[in-house]
């Protein structure tokens, strides 16, 4: 009989992208040395474009100098995947979990992230599907509603997924999202007629779908976000 698996969840509100990277670095290190259990960060970012390890900045369609004019930042990261946009009303989950303890590789992990988002979308009557080969992510028809980009080091994950609740989709016009040129980006708002509850409720639902997909026995909701937001290494 396997030992029970616990997930600790921090709901952080809006967090600057660089700050979220620092928090994740610290948590990855703590998870590697078994100081913390599997941990999930639930948050949003201010308008931010990010690139993955392959640095595909040819998929940014406006000059970098224009970004401040549209109120956005740009960051290069070590995650997989292509260029994407994060912003208000997009729900982000950054799982810092040990894949070795569940015997998962990258493929199983990403497929389970996709399943979490598909299950969540179905709560609003939205029939989403996983992407085809080379189109990792979650789609409604040919419209992308959820994106994934992760990093795995020593079997510990960071970065994660982004699900469009009701972000300003115009920001996606300035990129070739995920490097896929001929497909649209969509949102839960666009795809459902259902009344959307408060975003806090929506985030909790997404987290619950994640916990279920990854078969956690216990979910611990951490109450004081300042505990990890006020990291000492903060710049």
């Amino acid at each position, binding site marked *: 009989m396997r030992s029970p698996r616990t997930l600790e969840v921090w709901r952080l509100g809006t967090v600057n992208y660089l700050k979220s990277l620092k928090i994740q670095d610290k948590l990855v290190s703590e998870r590697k040395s078994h100081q913390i259990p599997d941990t999930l960060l639930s948050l949003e970012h201010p308008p931010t474009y990010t690139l*993955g390890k392959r640095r595909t900045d040819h998929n940014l369609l406006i000059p970098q100098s224009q970004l401040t004019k549209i109120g956005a930042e740009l960051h290069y990261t070590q*995650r*997989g995947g292509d260029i994407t946009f994060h912003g208000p009303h997009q729900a982000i989950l950054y799982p810092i979990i040990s894949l070795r303890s569940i*015997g998962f590789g990258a493929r199983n992990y*990403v497929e389970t992230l996709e399943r979490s988002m598909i299950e969540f979308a179905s709560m609003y009557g939205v029939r989403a599907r996983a992407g085809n080969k080379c189109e990792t992510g979650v789609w409604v028809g040919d419209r992308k509603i959820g994106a994934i980009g992760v990093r795995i*080091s020593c079997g510990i994950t960071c970065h994660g997924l982004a699900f469009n609740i009701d972000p300003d989709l115009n920001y996606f016009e300035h990129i070739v999202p995920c490097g896929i040129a001929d497909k649209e980006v969509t949102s839960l708002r666009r795809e459902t007629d259902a009344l959307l509850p408060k975003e806090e409720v929506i985030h909790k639902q997404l987290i619950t779908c994640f916990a279920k997909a990854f078969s956690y026995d216990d979910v611990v909701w951490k109450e004081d976000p300042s505990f990890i937001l006020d990291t000492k290494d903060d710049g």
Partner: protein
Amino acid sequence: MALTLMLASSRIASHLRISLSHRAFSSVVLKDLKYADSHEWVKIEGNKATVGITDHAQEHLGDVVYVELPDVGRSVSQGESFGAVESVKATSDINSPISGKVLQVNKDLSESPALVTSSPYEEGWIIKVELSDAGEVKKLMDSDKYSKFCEEEDAKH
């Protein structure tokens, strides 16, 4: 039909010195290599070593679309990351099974990263290293131990 294939593959495997486990999702493990628990293999030839990722690793990654290679001349340390592969929007660190100096990197992987997927033990080799401590090899697993390790990992879910 399945039994015939299994017997044929066992005979071929035995001829090629490969051990196969006959499970639904079995991966290839070569007998003359050593293995790290982060699923990298190393072939030792005197004080030189060739490193790559195993068949088990590439199966669990999905199709590799990018390989980040280290610079020739840099040091690598046992258990430490020296590069990364990308698959299914995930970058996964590659850790070195041994310590030493990078003599050569597989430049074919820049144009054809999928070689890691299609030929993880041959054309998909990643770096060649001059060993700094041959004794470290004792800390690695042989093919039988590694096969068992993979089975135990896969049984976790």
